[in-house]
């Protein structure tokens, strides 16, 4: 490990040299390489994660550029996963980066996530998030939900059977609506930054913050301390 690279980070008392060394041994998978996934992957690679997979079967189009930071116009039409792989490898050669140009489904998710220490949510589909949630609980792999809509973003780190899962908080949430999701361009980078921090805290075994809600337009930040639903159909100990 190049000591100079992380010097300004290892002197942060919450993190330290020990945190850096732990991080270098961890593997994460980022599902989705758009506004959230690309920004989170960028930060995790720069901060010194050991290895990272980024899974996305989409190609980059012009509507992605307003809320992402690594992609350029020259990347239009290319695989998001492969472009991220190429660019992230140039940012930090100490990190093993792998782009996987594949659609994540209920059938293949187990093989994709089985070696991950944490799953990072960069998808824009609620149904896929519920698949991630289920596999996370089944295999005891923590994950970090994040979502953005208009000017509001949410993040919640999920430690299976210890903290509330997505199903615990989602009793009134319908499936994703069809059509384009409105997102202010400045929002995903902030939410990804929060998501990346919660991911690192999970990797280092630090306590999570709960459900975080941030409105970038009104500059309003909330943390909700919440409990598990003991009757949750996915993670509950008293399943109905």
């Amino acid at each position, binding site marked *: 490990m190049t000591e100079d690279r992380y010097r300004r980070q290892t002197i942060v008392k919450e993190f330290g040299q020990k945190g850096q060394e732990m991080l270098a041994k961890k593997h994460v998978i980022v599902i989705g390489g758009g506004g959230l996934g690309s920004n989170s992957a960028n930060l995790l690679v720069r901060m010194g994660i050991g290895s990272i997979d980024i899974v996305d079967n989409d190609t980059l189009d012009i509507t992605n550029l307003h809320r992402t930071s690594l992609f350029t116009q020259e990347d239009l039409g290319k695989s998001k996963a492969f472009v991220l792989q190429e660019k992230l490898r140039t940012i930090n050669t100490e990190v093993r980066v792998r782009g996987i140009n594949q659609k994540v489904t209920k059938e293949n998710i187990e093989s994709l996530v089985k070696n991950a220490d944490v799953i990072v949510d960069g998808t*824009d589909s609620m149904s896929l998030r519920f698949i991630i949630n289920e596999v996370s609980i089944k295999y005891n792999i923590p994950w970090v939900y994040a*979502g953005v809509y208009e000017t509001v973003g949410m993040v919640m780190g999920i430690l299976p059977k210890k903290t509330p899962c997505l199903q*615990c908080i*989602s009793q*009134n949430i*319908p499936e994703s609506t069809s059509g384009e999701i409105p997102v202010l361009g400045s929002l995903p980078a902030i939410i990804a930054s929060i998501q990346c921090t919660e991911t690192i805290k999970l990797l280092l075994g630090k306590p999570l913050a709960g459900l975080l809600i941030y409105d970038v337009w009104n500059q*309003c930040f*909330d943390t909700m301390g919440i409990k598990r639903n003991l009757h949750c159909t996915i993670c509950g100990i008293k399943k109905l």
Partner: protein
Amino acid sequence: MKITVRLFGRYKDITGKDQIKLDISAGNTLRDVVDTFVKQYPATEKDKSRMMVSKNKMYASFDTTIIESDEITLSPPVVSGG
């Protein structure tokens, strides 16, 4: 019954408060809390069916019954974009 409700996200901006008291005269469920809140603050109408409501720090369905001493929170729906 008078219920104290803590607000999160943009609901604080809409109401100008982080905590409000709602008079739930008809019914005793979380749905009645949501209905009363939306009636008082019509700007929240679009969230009505998806609003996240917690009772005593646990998210709960709209049919959950409440009593005056319950700690209720309302927050905007979980967001899905990426």
